[in-house]
């Protein structure tokens, strides 16, 4: 068995025992190696002291009938001080390696491409170099350094990707930086790690690490997909589908199934037909005509959706109509 294979086996063993998430960024493996050593030392220390104590408790227990003088007549800590000095060197070793890794995590390479991240209660928004934006799902290419430039609109949040072993607070009034190179395509959890109120535990998103060519096609916006499936993807990215279902069940907003061209009863009286004009108006100025029975809670997507994107969403809703 070669050294690399041995290393892989040891890594797999500790990684599983310690219940760690996948190692999906360029730094996660080396951080895990330090983790194994530090936690291994902690275990050794705790069990070592406990075993020593139990041994002393048994070895030097006070036996009835056996008279023995306690022998310590003066204090000596020579052995203990040597142990303490060795312990300190161990801790300082952790510090040296840990600080070197920390510096690496905190220094983005100059060729990293930037994505701007805006956190707010309780969602993540991402703005990409080409002007594209997504919500809750961040898309990145595999193997390329990405620098996130982050700020918050309200309270402190924290951008945390367990699989990357990375986290950075997102602070209102400041820009903070997090950079990474994803090493494995896949979808990974993003958590808000800084308590931010009632919806904190719902402020979860994902990172989709895509093969480079797929990412390039997506970011250029010239996929081979048809307009309706583009609309479906955009509706998912922009968070539309969190409130609007496509299976006919009402949720926070009206369902999209069978909506296109159907008559809609408006709060305050009157009926409109859900045609292209009404659907577009509802995206850009949702308060204009609220559907009867729903709360006026939808945010405006004016400036959030480009013309072609809004058109694609209308096309998607059209594909869900009842009489095609």
């Amino acid at each position, binding site marked *: 068995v070669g050294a690399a294979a041995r290393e892989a086996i040891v890594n797999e063993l500790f990684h599983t025992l310690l219940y760690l998430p996948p190692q999906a960024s360029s730094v996660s493996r080396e951080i895990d190696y330090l983790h194994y050593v530090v936690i291994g030392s902690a275990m050794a220390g705790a069990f070592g002291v406990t075993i020593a104590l139990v041994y002393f408790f048994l070895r030097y227990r006070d036996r009835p009938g056996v008279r023995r003088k306690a022998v*310590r007549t003066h204090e000596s*800590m020579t052995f203990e001080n040597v142990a303490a000095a060795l312990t300190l060197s161990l801790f300082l070793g952790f510090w040296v390696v840990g600080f070197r890794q920390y510096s690496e995590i905190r220094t983005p390479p100059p060729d990293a491409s930037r994505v701007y991240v805006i956190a707010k209660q309780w969602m993540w928004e991402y703005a990409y170099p080409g002007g594209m934006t997504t919500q809750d799902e961040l898309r990145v290419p595999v193997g390329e350094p990405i620098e996130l430039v982050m700020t918050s609109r309200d309270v402190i949040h*924290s951008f945390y990707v367990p699989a990357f072993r990375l986290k950075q607070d997102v602070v209102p009034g400041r820009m903070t930086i997090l950079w990474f190179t994803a090493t494995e395509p896949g979808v990974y959890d993003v958590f808000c790690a800084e308590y931010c109120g*009632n919806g904190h535990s719902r402020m979860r998103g994902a990172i989709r690490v895509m093969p480079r060519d797929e990412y390039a096609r997506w970011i250029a916006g010239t996929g081979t997909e048809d307009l309706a499936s583009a609309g479906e993807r955009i509706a998912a990215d922009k968070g539309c589908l969190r409130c609007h279902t496509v299976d006919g069940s009402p949720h926070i907003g009206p369902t999209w199934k069978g909506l296109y061209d159907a008559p809609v009863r408006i709060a305050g009286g009157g009926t409109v037909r859900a045609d292209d004009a009404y659907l577009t108006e509802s995206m850009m100025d949702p308060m204009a005509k609220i559907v009867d029975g729903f709360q006026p809670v939808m945010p405006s997507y004016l400036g959030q959706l480009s013309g072609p994107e809004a058109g694609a969403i209308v096309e998607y809703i059209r594909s869900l109509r009842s009489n095609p």
Partner: protein
Amino acid sequence: MSELGFWRNPPGHGFWSSWLLTKDHKRIGVMFFIATAVALALGGIFALLLRIELLTPERTIMGAHAYDEMFTLHGVVMVWLFMIPSIPTTFGNFLVPIMIGARDVAFPRLNLASFYVYVAGAIIVLCGLVLGGVDTGWTFYAPYSTTTPTKVAIVAGGVFVLGISTIMTGINFIVTVHTMRAKGVTWMRMPLFVWAIYATSIIQVLATPVLGLSLALVGADHIWNLGLFDPQLGGDPVLFQHLFWFYSHPAVYIMILPAMGVISEVVPTFSHNRPASYRWIVLSSIGIAFVGFLTWGHHMFVAGMSRFDAGMFGILSMLVAIFSAIKVYAWTSTFRKGRITFTTPLLYVLAFMFLFVFGGMSGVAVATSSLDVHWHDTYFVVAHFHFVMVGGTLTGYLAAIHYWFPKVTGRMYPDKWGIVASAGVSLGFVFTFLPQFLLGNAGMPRRYWSYPPQYQWLHVASTAGATVLALGMILTLTYVLVAFFHGPPAGDNPWRSRSFEWRTSSPPPEENFDQIPQLTRGPYDYGEDDA
């Protein structure tokens, strides 16, 4: 001398007036004990409700808002109503004057005032709970805390008042130790528990004003919208974190140093041996008290901090850890070649050592800056501070209860039940928090009301452990109460300890001694005429 010692009402006083207006440090200690034990029970009930809620990934028994308020209360009550005051105001109050051969503390009236200020602070905090609760977490991070509509100002005000009580008690102990030592009790003959309380008091007096200041600013910001910590008004949210942790990191030593003091007393008594090094145990307490002030930034490695700062706070954190390591080595060596009697307090020492060493080393782990980036604000941190701070303080507190029970009451509890309960408490504690270390490794953030389903089995395991812990605590409460009223007489010195507090009768008389003792030896001189 009365058999009941200080428990008997002085002539001419009724029961209530003799207790509520007492200036006797022992009676004030007993009153503090009752108050802080009630706080422990409350905090424990909140903890169990949290654990029950976390049994399922979505709603189990309460909604997100109730959960947010519950973890805030759990933290506030456990930190400020239990862990900070518990050992100093109860055992410190009861024992420090006796241990140094004094008839009372330096300022008996201030001591009683401190009790009532504590009660007032506790009532204000609980009013905040009744009037609608607070949902910021015990850390009150701005600008969430300055903008949430919950009762931040009331609860922060309550904690402010509690801080005044802490400062009063701290000043009292410092002056008592400096001025009230009997003849022969030189600095280097003081019992180690007194040293620990002394070091704690220094931190209390120096750090608590900063907490009061930061919470007053948050409260003012919340009420009047001053914008001190709100960037929209030109303030800085990270400034609050610096202020908060400048107090709250030393505060963890306020919680753990008294427990270390308890361990330093229990270990020599039950090993019938001198401490391996009195001097090193003392020096490390002082070292912790001072270096502990310089490490607060390790709570902020991912908050937005320069690399230089992160490096400095990292290395200072490694230095403060070494003082604890020295203590652990000294305690462990003390048992070597001793004459060990195995009792309930000693089992708590064993639990303390496991929890404290693993918890402390996990602290070294989170002080390692690159590892902290992954663990910060996850269950790993929750497990870490529960192991080292709560585990350390709680096992120290329970060791103190079992060690000094005969001293305070003159009665003895059933040691068999003590051992059963301490095994339950210790194992329950370990199995509550070991799964939480793994949850943190797996990336589960703290303060999550709902969570992805892959984390569920570890939460269920943790709740099971908490149930065992709770049963151990209930068992302890039961036999301690029974023994208090019906336990057999213990005798003046049931452990055959040579420490100073055992030289007076148990329970001690009203002014501690018939005659102030003249001490010609140290408190741990085992092995000379002690065959």
